[in-house]
């Protein structure tokens, strides 16, 4: 009878005025990797939040090993063997790796916590994961990728029958992804069912057994991965034919507007490059290679330790961010929640802040500000229904559109876009790429900094490749190839080791 380890039938979740999930059936076999696929806001997160015990369905049932269950909270689900790694980590930054992993179930020696055993067991877990981490290190000091591994390591406890991973590879390097996949394969062989949320088809194609596609809170279908190809999946997800995601971008009369000479900051060795109007400059590199720090130093967000930046012949090195913005620089943050948006206010208000700053007048005429934020919202294709909603209440893709909209609120000519499509679905990505095209073709300088290799390969006219804090290659459009870029990542690694 219990062919499925986890089975949900007729799952529905209503929020006031909104049907977030509509009569969805979902079944997980033991030892399978089951991918949940869909645009932001399709209901994936709602579905797993109920399976994970973080939320309760309005109607519908969940069965674990054939028995109907209803979890009071995430802890209850964990006790039953369902462990979830959410996108927002549940780690305590001021505690050590070992303390985090054994939080609430510390090994004891008499009445005291046995720190030595805790560290030893932690080391064993990470040896199994083949990921070197100091069990005594404070979590706050680790990279995001390492924190992700700690989060996954927490699941290596007790009876695990279902592991839910919400976009686990978003911040991992390729090698770390390989490790993660080996680990998933290991769990599979032990009969653990894995639910895996991801946008990256190429990636999950390597490990998925089945894929379930959701759209607008409804189940579109479940298929065997063997029968699924990219086009079918994207069509099911978006409900429309696949068109070319990456637009052709004309290079229009490139002219240098910024020269960077020997710019350095902790983690980035002196870098020389030029920024030109009318073209897209890509900066490719693995997570943690220093590409983000480089542009943040350029922008004045992090302090610069040396070098000069010239904008139209004038030395602008060391200016604070607001002066750089006043000169026409715009920096799009890779972290829309932490430093991009005010989540407790509406999309309209978020854009208005920048519009008001851009105008520089002491008094605000709201009617004209509102007209402008509306025009910007049109430009970034933000659905009118979302404009007066709190930003926290719209999906990640729409939040990213609002963040993009801020670019257009202040007059700028140099757009530095740091991970412009992070955690965004295919439909929104295509829209954002079209905006990048328009910016470049209108004669602006656009810099795309991205860990998503196809993105920078396809958009860039010129590409800088970074590894270990250095610019290791600069390629013209006709020289750009995945092979060459990847080889550069590796070459440098071998030299370093």
């Amino acid at each position: 009878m219990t062919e499925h380890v986890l089975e949900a039938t007729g799952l529905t979740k209503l929020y006031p005025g909104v049907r977030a999930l509509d009569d969805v059936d979902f079944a997980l076999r033991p030892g399978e990797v089951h991918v949940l696929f869909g645009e932001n806001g399709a209901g994936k997160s709602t579905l797993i939040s109920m399976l994970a015990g973080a939320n309760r369905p309005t109607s519908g049932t969940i069965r674990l090993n054939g028995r109907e269950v209803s979890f009071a909270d995430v802890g209850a689900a964990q006790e039953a063997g369902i462990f979830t790694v959410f996108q927002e980590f549940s780690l305590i930054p001021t505690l050590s790796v070992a303390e985090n992993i054994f939080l609430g179930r510390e090994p004891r020696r008499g009445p005291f916590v046995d720190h030595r055993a805790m560290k030893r067991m932690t080391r064993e877990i990470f040896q199994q994961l083949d990921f070197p981490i100091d069990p005594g290190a404070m979590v706050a000091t680790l990279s995001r990728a390492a924190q992700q591994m700690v989060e996954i390591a927490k699941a290596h406890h007790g009876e695990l029958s279902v592991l839910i991973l919400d976009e686990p590879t978003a911040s991992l390097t390729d090698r770390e992804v390989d490790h993660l996949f080996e680990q998933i394969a290991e769990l599979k062989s032990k009969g653990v069912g894995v639910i895996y949320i991801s946008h990256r088809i190429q990636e999950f194609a390597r490990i998925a057994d089945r894929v379930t596609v959701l759209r607008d809170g409804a189940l579109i279908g479940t298929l065997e991965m063997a029968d699924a190809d990219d086009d079918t999946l994207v069509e099911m997800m978006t409900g429309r034919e696949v068109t070319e995601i990456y637009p052709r971008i004309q290079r229009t009369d490139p002219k240098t507007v910024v020269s960077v000479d020997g710019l350095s900051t902790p983690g980035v060795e002196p870098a020389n490059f030029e920024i030109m109007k009318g073209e897209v400059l890509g900066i490719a590199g693995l997570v943690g290679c220093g590409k983000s720090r480089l542009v943040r130093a350029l922008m004045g967000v992090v302090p610069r330790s040396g070098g000069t930046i010239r904008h139209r012949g004038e030395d602008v090195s060391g200016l604070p961010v607001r002066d750089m913005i006043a000169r026409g620089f715009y920096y799009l943050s890779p972290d829309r929640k932490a430093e991009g948006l005010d989540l407790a206010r509406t999309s309209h208000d978020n854009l208005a802040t920048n519009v008001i700053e851009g105008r520089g007048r002491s008094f605000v005429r709201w009617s004209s500000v509102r007209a402008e934020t509306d025009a910007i919202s049109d430009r970034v294709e933000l659905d009118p229904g979302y404009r007066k909603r709190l930003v926290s209440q719209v999906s990640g893709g729409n939040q990213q559109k609002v963040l993009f909209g801020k670019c257009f609120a202040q007059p700028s000519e140099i757009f530095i876009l740091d991970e412009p499509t992070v955690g965004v679905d295919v439909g929104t990505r295509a829209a954002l790429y079209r905006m990048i095209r328009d910016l470049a073709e209108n004669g602006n300088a656009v810099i795309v900094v991205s860990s998503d290799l196809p993105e920078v390969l396809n958009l860039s006219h010129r590409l800088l490749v970074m590894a270990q804090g250095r610019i290791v290659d600069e390629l013209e459009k006709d020289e750009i190839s995945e092979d060459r870029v990847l080889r550069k990542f590796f070459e440098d690694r071998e030299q370093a080791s």
Partner: protein
Amino acid sequence: MTRTTTNQASGGLQDFARRTFIRLGVLPVFLIVAVVVFSLLSSKFLTGQNLINVARQSVYLVLVALGQMLALISGGFDLSVGTAIAVTSVVSALTMVWASGVFPEMLWFAITIGILAGFGAALLIGIVNGIGVSYFQVSPFIMTLGVSSVGGGLALFMTGGVPVSGLPFDFGNVFGFGRLFGVPVPVLVAIVCIVLMWIFMSRTRLGTQIYAVGGNIRAAELSAINTRRTLMIAYALCALLASLTGVLLTARVESGEANLGGSIALESIAACVIAGVSLRGGIGRVENVVLGAFFIVLVQNGMNLAQVSSYMQMVLLGSLLILAVIFDQVRYRMMMQAR
């Protein structure tokens, strides 16, 4: 895109209550409960004369709460508003007494420089708070608590703990008990400040900058806002509004006193939080804060009429503050979760 349900009618009332709560917070409920309870307890409560009294008494808290609101919206708070009042009172009184001794025939000149000296002293307090919070990133709690002790100590030191008397009569006659067009001067001052603050917060760039800094300081910085300057302005204006209260109170008691404004930090924070100003910053409205301050004074007035002892009043006020914060948490969670 998520679909909207068609059955809006069912649960419509619940939905309305929820939306109202998210928008206005807990104040409407508190106000209704207070009015009902106190008019049951005392027949004098719901009379025109009493309500006018409440309006007059609430002037001082309204002004301080408006300042407190600025600090709260910017993402901090100001525990030193009471000290700003005390310092203003002592400094302005000492200056007035000194100046009226030196220029006995120019009393209005003495009054003016006395008031300006009070403003100056409070401004200094605000700037010190602002520098600590913005340049040295001291938590607003510690910064304003420390400044509160420093200022309070200085005020006591300057007076030796004895009230400063001998102020020009006109000062008290005009700013304490005077009327213009039949309206008490303090009430007029408050009305002007309310209007100016409303314009400041909703119609000026500086106002939107304070909201932006409190909402997400990193995002504000990346939007070209000078976040340090914005924080400085918030704390400076907060101190100035407290200072204005200090001047009005000094005129009312006709002496400079180092113990004025003792419980006003707590009361002003309570007024703001009850009025829906978020302790996380970025959220709050002038008109609601005015109503919040009015509510606190109304409750105090009601308790006086119902002959609740002043000690028990402290208990109730503290409880109200905590209750309001709990509702604020619930409200914030609802705001963030509703999809």
